[in-house]
């Protein structure tokens, strides 16, 4: 009988997992970095514009690419700026879309980085329970299925995201536009400290970033880095040692690869422009961020 009970338990697991496979195939959510096959790249490569690409995570996504293009085109009408940011970008993930990016014949690549970009926090970990076994997120798949099945029909899960042509991989929602009071910019201190921990000798991200630079330089594309702006509350909790290590690392990169770095880390740290402690709001009252990035681009156009 013991064996029968064990068999029933095993069978239950199998039935659930097997039923998930077709469900996953139908409703799976693409990982944010799986942009390589996106038709966007084909479309852009067929244009006659001189292309400039901006890369990075959500803090780069908060840039207003329409406004940037407006400013840049006043000086260089032949240039078109595309913001290829996606959520939670890190250099190891960006490697997946380098080939597609180069297919657009870019003239310059601007890569926005900050303390977390080179942290050893993102080294491959195994402590993610079922995730480490299957490399999937069942909840995201189920929620996507609910949205797909119920969303349009019932209006219960309407899509509240907007996509701009020049920022194709970073859909916007209303909350990204909201400027919050500085006193409400909360941070999970423990997690933040872990996420900014610098260990250059053991950072898979640093290796990936070097590979990225080498790849673009081999293809004769100019690479420029800019450090992302942060609110003072964020800067206050990044340990001094990590700040110093990060600065040393990017200075070394700059020297080794002859890559220019623009520093925006402290640029707006006490201004009322923040959605949260590490995202400038995408708002008409916080355009200063996009304007400064536009000036940086203009200064680098040959």
């Amino acid at each position, binding site marked *: *009988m*013991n064996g*029968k*009970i064990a068999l*029933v*338990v095993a*069978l*239950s*697991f199998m*039935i*659930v*997992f097997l*039923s*998930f496979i077709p*469900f996953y195939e139908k409703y799976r959510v693409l990982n944010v970095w799986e942009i390589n096959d996106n038709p966007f790249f084909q479309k852009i490569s067929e244009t006659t514009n001189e292309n400039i690409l901006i890369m990075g995570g959500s803090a780069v996504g908060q840039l207003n690419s329409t406004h940037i293009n407006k400013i840049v085109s006043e000086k260089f009408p032949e240039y078109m700026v595309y913001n290829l940011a996606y959520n939670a970008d890190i250099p190891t993930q960006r490697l997946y879309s380098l080939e597609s990016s180069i297919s657009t014949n870019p003239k310059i690549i601007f890569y926005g980085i900050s303390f977390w970009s080179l942290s050893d926090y993102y080294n491959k970990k195994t402590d*993610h*329970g*079922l*995730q480490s*076994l299957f490399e*999937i*997120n*069942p*909840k*995201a*798949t*189920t*929620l996507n299925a609910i949205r797909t099945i119920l969303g349009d029909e019932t209006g*219960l*899960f309407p899509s509240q995201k907007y996509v701009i042509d020049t920022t194709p991989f970073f859909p916007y929602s209303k909350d990204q536009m909201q400027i919050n*009071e500085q*006193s*409400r910019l*909360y941070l*999970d201190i423990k997690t933040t400290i872990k996420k900014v921990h610098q260990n250059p000798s053991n950072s898979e991200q640093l290796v990936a970033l070097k590979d990225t630079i080498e790849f673009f330089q081999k293809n004769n594309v100019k690479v420029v880095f800019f450090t992302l702006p942060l609110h003072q509350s964020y800067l206050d909790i990044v340990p001094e040692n990590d700040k110093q290590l990060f600065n040393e690392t990017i200075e070394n990169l700059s020297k080794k690869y002859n890559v220019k770095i623009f520093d925006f880390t402290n640029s707006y740290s006490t201004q009322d422009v923040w959605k949260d402690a590490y995202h400038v709001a995408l708002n008409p009252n916080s355009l200063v961020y996009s304007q400064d990035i536009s000036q940086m681009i203009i200064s680098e156009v040959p």
Partner: protein
Amino acid sequence: MLFTTPEFILFFTLVVTTIIVFKNKKFQHVLILIASYFFYYYSGTYFLSLLVVSTLIDFWFGKLIYKSSSTNRKIIFSISMAFNLGLLGFFKYVNFFVDQVNSGLTSVGIQQIEFLEIVLPVGISFYTFHSMGYLIDIYRKQITPSDSLLDYSIYVAFFPQLVAGPILRAKQFLPQLREKINNFHGIKQIIVTDSNLKFGITLMAIGFLKKMFFADNIAPLVNQVFQNPIGYDSFSVMLATLSFGIQIYGDFSGYSDIAIGAALILGFTIPKNFNKPFFATSPTDFWRRWHISLSTWVRDYLYLPMVFKRRKSLSYVFVSLLVTFFLLGLWHGAGWNFMIFGLLHGLYVGIDTILRSKYPSLANQRFFGSKIGKLTSILITQYLIFFAFIAFRVENFDQMIYVMTKFIFIDFQTNEFFNLILQNKVPVVLVFTFIILHVVAYFKKSYLEIISSLKIRYWIVFLIIIIGLIFYLYDANPDDFIYFKF
């Protein structure tokens, strides 16, 4: 090792299979101890040595207390308590103490003391209480010390309950390791019976459901509000507090269910740790239903000895309750919020006790016997209990004052509240599903027995539903069990 990881499922399956295959009693017991130490090592690395050393010392203390004359007995007992409390105090409270001293030193301009670089060993609050309970029982002559170091080590380190309880009593657990053979208490054969296996798996499945389906999926709503509650309206704060109460219940009672189920499969009975606490009709009743193993431990080893000689003085009883609950709060963690959590409960139970003593006829009023009266008692009690949960969850004093004020003085604003619901549809649905299921479970008290006695062809449907619910809504980045940090 988290219960909710594939590693635990694999580990537990291996342990159970080995016990079924190898019938040698001594081997089975040694295997359980090795498995428990491996489980702990996997959770807390080098702290295993601390667990082993404290086990050896307490085993020795137990023998010494038992053998000593009455004067020496008291001294040795005091030393053993100082050892255990010292261990707990050092790892858990020393940096909190340093922090408080530093606050004082800063105000008078004296240089601050450096914090010690120590990490809290996983489960230290639980296994220290095991050992202390064992030593107190020996001192009180309620039990004799275990003759077997192996038995005692299993009692302290038994893996299902090692890192987050329930807190075991030696007199309940140690006899389960022995059986009477020809007037001799020999090592007990561990037999995995069909009924225990089926009931244990059912209980574990319910535990996994509480933790992984409910608690983990309700957490995003709670985190969104409590990461910075200032600015939220009253209804949002109340929804988040309600959700947190359900989250922590699902988390901790889920852990307890898994622990009790796993122990039962191995043939050990661990008393239940929760008994529908959200149906408590008074604060005193709540503590008979919530974290029962801790509340009874504190009652038997701290509160009752404290009031024994002066139990007729209501003011003394009240102060004793305040002290007891203050320490109970402090047990949860070194922070002012836990102390306030404890003091609030001390206040509740103290007032409840005084009212019952001064007005004994109140409880017999017809109103409290009626359904409406009972429902009113439940609602008032739960309002107070959830109010105290705020202190448990907040991260600083300003936030606590803000949330508590919003909880008491309702502002009737709804903008943030509706936004919160729209952003957290899944957690909100789960909160209300939980409440419905909790009510059903309250009226259908024997639901576990009913499920576990289902015929196999129906039982598999139950398992598929539970595993399906858990898996299809499994979050790739779940939170740890909340009580792991205690």
